[in-house]
C-alpha cells in the first residue's frame, strides 16, 4: 500500500465534491515526549509531525522517490554527495522563507548531540555536513556511500524545520514547518491540535490534492486503551482512530457508517530474535527446534482474527527486496521435528513439569517482558508461544522489567535469550540494521540476535553501497535465507496499521510509511 491506497478510498466514497472546513479528531495510542521530530522516536510524533513538516523528498514506491521540497537532486562522488535544488516561494508557518539555510539548520540540529536525538540521527549516521551553495541549492556530504539516505530524508523525523524556531531554547520548542497544518497547542497526554495552513502550496509529487487543506482543525487525541479508542470512534467522539484493535476491526467491517483500512507496514516484521551467543540457543538445532515448536500461524490467526498476516520472513511483503521464496528455509511448525532436533541436541531428559533437561540444567530461555513496550496484545501472543514451547519441553521465563533494566541489563548487558521487536521502515537496508554484526543495540543498531556472521555483514554492506539493483536484491535475499536457516529469528506477524474512519471522512491518503496524510482529507455529509 502506498499513497495510491488513499486515492482508492476517496474514489470509493460516494459522489459530491470535497467541502472545506470542519474539525477532524483522530484518536491514537501512545503519547508524546517531544514534538521535535529530530528528538522523539515515537511513531505518534512521526504521525503528527507528518502534517506539520514537509520533507525534501517523498517515497513513491518500494524503492522510488519523488520531489517534494526538493525539486531535483543529483548524487555524485560515488554516492557520497547529494546536491538538492529546492522549491521556491515556500514559507514556514512563522513566515520565515524556506531556503537552503533551513535544510542545513535542520540536519545540523538533528545530529547535534545536545538535541539528544533518539532516532533521526541514527537514520543519517554517515552525515558529515551540509553546505549552502545558493539560496535554494544545498549540498550534503556523507562520510561513506549510503543508499538509504533519500529514504531517510523522506521520513517525518527529518522533516525540514524553520531555522528561526530552532534557535529557541528547548523548553519552549514549537514545531514550525512548511506543512499543510500548523501547530496550535499540545495538552500533555491529552491532545495535539493543528490548524489549517491556508498558504500551503508545497504538496509532494503524486499528491491527490493540491493547495491548502480542506480541514480547518486537525486534532490528535491520545487514547492509549484500545477498547476505549474503539469506543471513541463508534460513539462518534473521534472521526478516525489508529490501531483499531483487531478484535473490533472484525466487527467494524460489519458496521455501516465506518470505513476501515489496513496498511501493512514495510520493513522488519514483528519478529522474535534468538540470542545466538548465549546458553542453549548457541546450538542452531535448539533454535530451529524452538521455531518449529511454535504454531505461529494458528496463534496469529486467532489473536488477530486474520487481520495481521502471519510472517514467514523477517521482512514484510511490502518491503523492497522481499524474497518470498526465502520461507523455504524457515523452520516452520512441526512438533515432531522439534522433538527430534532437541533429542539430537542432547536435551533428552524431562523434569517434573515436562521441561527438557540436559546434564542437570532445564532448557530455560529468558524473554524479558517490557510492559511499556507492549502493544497489539503481544503479551497475549507471547503467552501462546510460552504455552506451545512448553509442549516441546522448552521453558520460557518472562521477567517483567522496566525501561532502565531492559536497556542496561538486557539489551546492552545481553542477559536474554529471546527478545521481540518490530521495526517499520520501508527499505531493505533494515536487514543491515537488524543483522550486521556492527549494529548491536549497544552500537545503536537493531542486531538483537547478536548475529556475528562475516558473510551477512559482507552482503548487507555491499547491498547498501552498490548502485546496481540486481546485486543488492540478491544480497538481501541471501540474508533473508541465511537468518531463517540459522533461525536467528522467528518471524511472527506483519504489523498492520488498522485505521478506521467514520464514513464522513474522505480523501485520507497513506504515505509510504502507512501514516495517514490529512492534506486532502475532508468531511462529507
Amino acid at each position, binding site marked *: 500500500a502506498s499513497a495510491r491506497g488513499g486515492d482508492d478510498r476517496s474514489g470509493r466514497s460516494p459522489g459530491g465534491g470535497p467541502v472545506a472546513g470542519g474539525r477532524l479528531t483522530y484518536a491514537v495510542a501512545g503519547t508524546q515526549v517531544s514534538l521535535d521530530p529530530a528528538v522523539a522516536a515515537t511513531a505518534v510524533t512521526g504521525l503528527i509531525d507528518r502534517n506539520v513538516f514537509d520533507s525534501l523528498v517523498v517515497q513513491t514506491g518500494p524503492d522510488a522517490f519523488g520531489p517534494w521540497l526538493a525539486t531535483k537532486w543529483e548524487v555524485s562522488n560515488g554516492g557520497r554527495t547529494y546536491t538538492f535544488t529546492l522549491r521556491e516561494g515556500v514559507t514556514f508557518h512563522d513566515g520565515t522563507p524556506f531556503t537552503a539555510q533551513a535544510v542545513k539548520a535542520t540536519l545540523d540540529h538533528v545530529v547535534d548531540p545536545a538535541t539528544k536525538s533518539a532516532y533521526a540521527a541514527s537514520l543519517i549516521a554517515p552525515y558529515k555536513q551540509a553546505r549552502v551553495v545558493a539560496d535554494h541549492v544545498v549540498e550534503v556530504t556523507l562520510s561513506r556511500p549510503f543508499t538509504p539516505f533519500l529514504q531517510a530524508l523522506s521520513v517525518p523525523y527529518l522533516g525540514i524545520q524553520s531555522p528561526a524556531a530552532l534557535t529557541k531554547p528547548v523548553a519552549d520548542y514549537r514545531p514550525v514547518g512548511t506543512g499543510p497544518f500548523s501547530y496550535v497547542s499540545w495538552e500533555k497526554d491529552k491532545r495535539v491540535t493543528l490548524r489549517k495552513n491556508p498558504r500551503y502550496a508545497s504538496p509532494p509529487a503524486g499528491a491527490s490534492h493540491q493547495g491548502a487543506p480542506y480541514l480547518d482543525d486537525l486534532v490528535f487525541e491520545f487514547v492509549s486503551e484500545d*477498547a476505549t479508542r474503539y469506543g471513541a470512534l463508534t460513539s462518534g467522539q473521534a472521526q478516525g482512530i489508529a490501531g483499531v484493535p483487531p*478484535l473490533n476491526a472484525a466487527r467494524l467491517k460489519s458496521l455501516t457508517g465506518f470505513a476501515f483500512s489496513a496498511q501493512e507496514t514495510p520493513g522488519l516484521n514483528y519478529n522474535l530474535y534468538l540470542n545466538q551467543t548465549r546458553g542453549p540457543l548457541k546450538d542452531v538445532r535448539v533454535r530451529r527446534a524452538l521455531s518449529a515448536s511454535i504454531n505461529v500461524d*494458528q*496463534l496469529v490467526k*486467532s489473536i488477530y482474527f486474520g487481520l495481521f498476516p502471519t510472517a514467514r520472513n523477517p521482512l514484510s511483503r511490502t518491503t523492497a527486496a522481499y524474497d518470498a521464496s526465502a520461507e523455504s528455509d524457515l523452520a516452520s511448525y512441526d512438533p515432531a521435528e522439534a522433538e527430534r532436533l532437541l533429542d539430537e541436541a542432547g536435551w533428552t531428559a524431562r523434569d517434573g513439569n515436562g521441561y527438557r533437561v540436559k546434564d542437570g540444567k532445564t532448557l530455560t530461555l529468558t524473554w524479558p*517482558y517490557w510492559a511499556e513496550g507492549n502493544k497489539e496484545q503481544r503479551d497475549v501472543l*507471547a*503467552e501462546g508461544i510460552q504455552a506451545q514451547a512448553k509442549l516441546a519441553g522448552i521453558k520460557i521465563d*518472562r521477567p517483567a522489567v*522496566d525501561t532502565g533494566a531492559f536497556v542496561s541489563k538486557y539489551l546492552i548487558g545481553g542477559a536474554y535469550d529471546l527478545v521481540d521487536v518490530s521495526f517499520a521502515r520501508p527499505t531493505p537496508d533494515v536487514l543491515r540494521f537488524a543483522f550486521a554484526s556492527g549494529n548491536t543495540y549497544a552500537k545503536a543498531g537493531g542486531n538483537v540476535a547478536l548475529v556475528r556472521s562475516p558473510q551477512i555483514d559482507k552482503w548487507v554492506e555491499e547491498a547498501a553501497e552498490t548502485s546496481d539493483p540486481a546485486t543488492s536484491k540478491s544480497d538481501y535475499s541471501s540474508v533473508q535465507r541465511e537468518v531463517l536457516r540459522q533461525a536467528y529469528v522467528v518471524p511472527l506477524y506483519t504489523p498492520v496499521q488498522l485505521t478506521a474512519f467514520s464514513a464522513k471522512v474522505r480523501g485520507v491518503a497513506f504515505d509510504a510509511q502507512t501514516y495517514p496524510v490529512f492534506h486532502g482529507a475532508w468531511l462529507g455529509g
Partner: protein
Amino acid sequence: MTAPTAVPYDPVRAAEVRARAPRHGLPRPGVLLAVAFFTLVCAAAAFPGLFAHAPDQVDPAAALLGPRAGHPFGTDQLGRDVFARVVYGARPSLLVGAGSTLLAGVAGSAWGLLGALGGRVVGEVAMRAADVLLSFPGILMALLVVAVLGPGTRNALLAITLALAPGFARVVRVQAMVVRGSPYVRAAVNLGLTPARILVRHIVPNVVAPLLILATINVGTAIIAGASLSFLGLGPQPPDPEWGAMLAQARDYLDAAWTLALFPGAAITLTVMSATVAGRALQARYEGRDSR
C-alpha cells in the same frame, strides 16, 4: 486501606453483652453460605488440581468461546479454559490477600505493642512512623514499593503488607492502651504479678482477640488491593492466572466476549464478600451484637 475502628473495643463490656445474648446456635444462612464459599475458595487455592486442569493450555482454534459444555466459563483469547484459570487464579489472589494480611497483622501487632508499652520515646517514634505511612493512601504506598521492587506476586504481597501494617499498628496500640489501663490489669498489679507476666497473660491475649476479627475483615480489602495492583499490571505476571490480571486482559474484549470480564470479577467480589461477611459475623458474635 483498613477502615479504622472508630471506638476502641472493650473486651469486658463485649464479654458481658455476649454473655447476656444467649448463643444462638447457628448463625444466619447468609453467613453460613459466606463461610462455605470462602472455604471453597481456600480449597481451590490450596489444591486447584482438584477442581480444574491445565489453566495455561492454549487452543487458539477454540478462542473466545462463550460458556458451554466443557468450558463452563468459556475460553479466553488463546482458547484457554476460563474456568480453569479462575480456579488457578484463586491461589495468587488469596496468597496476596491473606498472606499480606497475616504478615501485616503480625508486624502491626509487634509495632503497636511497642508503641503502647515501649516507653515514651520508643512509643512516640513507632507511632509517628505509623502516622507517616498512614499519611498517604495505602495503594500509593503499595505503588511506591512496587516501583522499587518491580512487579510480581511476592512484591505485591510485600507492598500490600507494608500498606496494611501501620493500620494494624495503630489499632493494636489503642487496644493495648485500653487494656493496660483496664481494672483487671490494675487488679493483676495489686496481686503483685510481674509486668512480664501481666503482659503475657492479660494484655497480649486481650489485644490480639479483636485483632483477629479486624484481620478477617481486612483480607477482603487486601484481596482487592492485590487485584488492583495486578489490574494495573504490577501484580503477578502472565501467564500465571490472576483475577485482576485476567480482568485487565478481558478489558480489550469487552464488546466481543464480555463474559471474559464477568467471571474473574465475580470471583473477586464473591470471595471478598464472603470474607467480609464472615468477618463481620465473627465480630458481631464476638462483641455480642447481633450482626446487623
